[in-house]
């Protein structure tokens, strides 16, 4: 043994760790870092406070019914989710790879016995778990308040909303990670993510309305175009799940309910899945081709 206590046993060939093991190692580290970070605390707090405010105001109002049986509280929460969840997921995903690249950590991790896909999936799973925790805490707090106030909002609605919020978060996280894989700097990635959020939340609706008027879109075209926005898919799928009809969305909703009926679940699920899989696949392709420097 040397003075440093190192046994001269170099070069004993070992088996590389499995894909699952490496992925979970990275996921655990990512989850730990996310939970320690300020954004996680901030978003969870903001989400819970906004959700509680909506729950409280709704509970003080008509008593939880209305909107064709779709709880007023749940409708309020949908709007909160539409604003907060995409922002959380996009920025979390955007910061993940780009910040590692910026500080030289990405190339250091890639110099270890790992595949780049393992790093991407590990980061994705870790961040997804942190988002799920954040959503569960926020929406869970709202559910507790609703129960405490004796509101007859269906618990199934809250569970359905939480599940779809998580699906939306996964899709937005994929988009965020694609942005992160493309950007060289974390600041650029996060800025781009916020820009994408603004487009999805505000601009796309306006563009769709303008397009409908200017191009005289037919109702089916309007419906299909709206499916390209994951936020619209989330909104329609949530409403469809708790109410079966989409008449609160106007003519496009009525058309969708009549035309597709129960197949809407499959349709919405397929579009949401595409928003998860396609950007993440593109991020994997980018990461495997591009230099990590």
């Amino acid at each position, binding site marked *: 043994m040397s003075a440093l206590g190192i046994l001269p046993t170099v070069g004993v060939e070992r088996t590389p760790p499995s894909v699952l093991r490496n992925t979970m190692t990275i996921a655990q580290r990512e989850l730990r870092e996310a939970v*320690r970070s300020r954004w996680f605390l901030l978003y969870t707090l903001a989400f819970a406070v906004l959700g509680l405010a909506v729950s409280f105001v709704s509970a003080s109002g008509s008593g939880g019914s209305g909107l064709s049986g779709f709880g007023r509280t749940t409708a309020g929460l949908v709007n909160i989710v539409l604003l907060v969840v995409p922002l959380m997921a996009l920025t979390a995903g955007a910061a993940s790879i780009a910040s590692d690249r910026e500080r*030289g950590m990405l190339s250091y991790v*890639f110099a270890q*016995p790992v595949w780049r896909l393992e790093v991407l999936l590990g980061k994705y799973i870790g961040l997804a778990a942190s988002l799920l925790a954040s959503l569960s805490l926020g929406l869970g707090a709202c559910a507790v308040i609703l129960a405490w106030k004796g509101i007859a909002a269906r618990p199934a609605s809250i569970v359905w909303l939480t599940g779809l919020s998580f699906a939306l978060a996964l899709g937005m996280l994929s988009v965020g990670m694609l942005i992160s894989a493309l950007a060289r700097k974390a600041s650029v990635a996060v800025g781009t993510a916020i820009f994408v959020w603004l487009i999805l939340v505000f601009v796309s609706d306006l563009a769709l309305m303008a397009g409908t008027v200017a191009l005289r879109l037919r109702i089916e075209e309007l419906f299909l175009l709206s499916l390209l926005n994951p936020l619209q898919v989330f909104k329609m799928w949530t409403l469809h799940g708790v109410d079966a009809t989409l008449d609160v969305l106007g003519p496009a909703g009525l058309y969708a309910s009549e035309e597709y009926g129960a197949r809407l679940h499959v349709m919405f699920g397929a579009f949401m899945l595409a928003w998860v899989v396609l950007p993440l696949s593109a991020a994997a392709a980018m990461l495997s081709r591009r230099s990590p420097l």
Partner: protein
Amino acid sequence: MIRIENIAMRFGKTAAVNGVSLHLDSGDSVALWGANGAGKTTLIRCVLGLLRYRGRITLGGHDVRRHGKRARLLVGYVPQEIGFYDDLGVAEAVRFFGRLKGLSHADAGATLDRVGLHGHEHKRIRELSGGMKQRLALAIALLGDPAVLVLDEVTASLDAVGRGEFLALLEQLSGMGRTLLFASHRIEEVASLAKRVAVLEHGRLKEVVPCGDFAARIARNAVLHLSIAAPIRKRAVELLSAEGLAPQLNGAGLLVPVAPEHKAVPFRILADAHIPVDDFELVSHEHAARIGTERMPEEDRP
């Protein structure tokens, strides 16, 4: 152990590495030597599979491009500077990278003992100095006792004391059957660690020479880099010039070309004039040419 065959790598239109071939047997130790932009770091990154290249690189018979994970399992890598996750604990970092290297329970304490970081297990990485971070990177590189160590200018960001300590540590670790490939522009590092020196120039491998021959060549043709406090630098230049030397000012001190048998002369002249020398190093002409302009402040530039 390491076979680099006709490697070419470009950044846009610039050939960073061009047609480089180099073979290292088990236990061999090769220093990559060359000016900035010569291709040292690029070649190391190709060996690690970080950059896309043409040609073929194998580590222990495993193709880096096709079986990168298995090939990198044989390697411990220490970069020039690493931006560890600041919030990570020191022991936590060791365990994390240990798991990535397939070690179920990396003994963080023993690993840190190896590199003189005993007692720092519970610190956050942000609490470590630059030298300590490099030691941590070395500890991580040594996890699983890899057959190959790849070091990329590992002392470049350290001060003189940290550099000396780190080099002493590397010297103790070398000669244990490991294959060592490292980039450096410090002759003392090369002389201590390398058996052979691969000289790179503009991305091409110019020559591979035994370390002894290379060190002798450098010694015949060396420059002293003296660290002297700014207010007395011009006075030092005057004194050395008056003695027939050709000192040149730069941002951190003076560069003085010296004959191999007269390396102590500048020290004697400056000591006689009570001008203290804070630190010194012997560098090559190529390195001196680089740092002569890199570190020179505006007011000192010609």
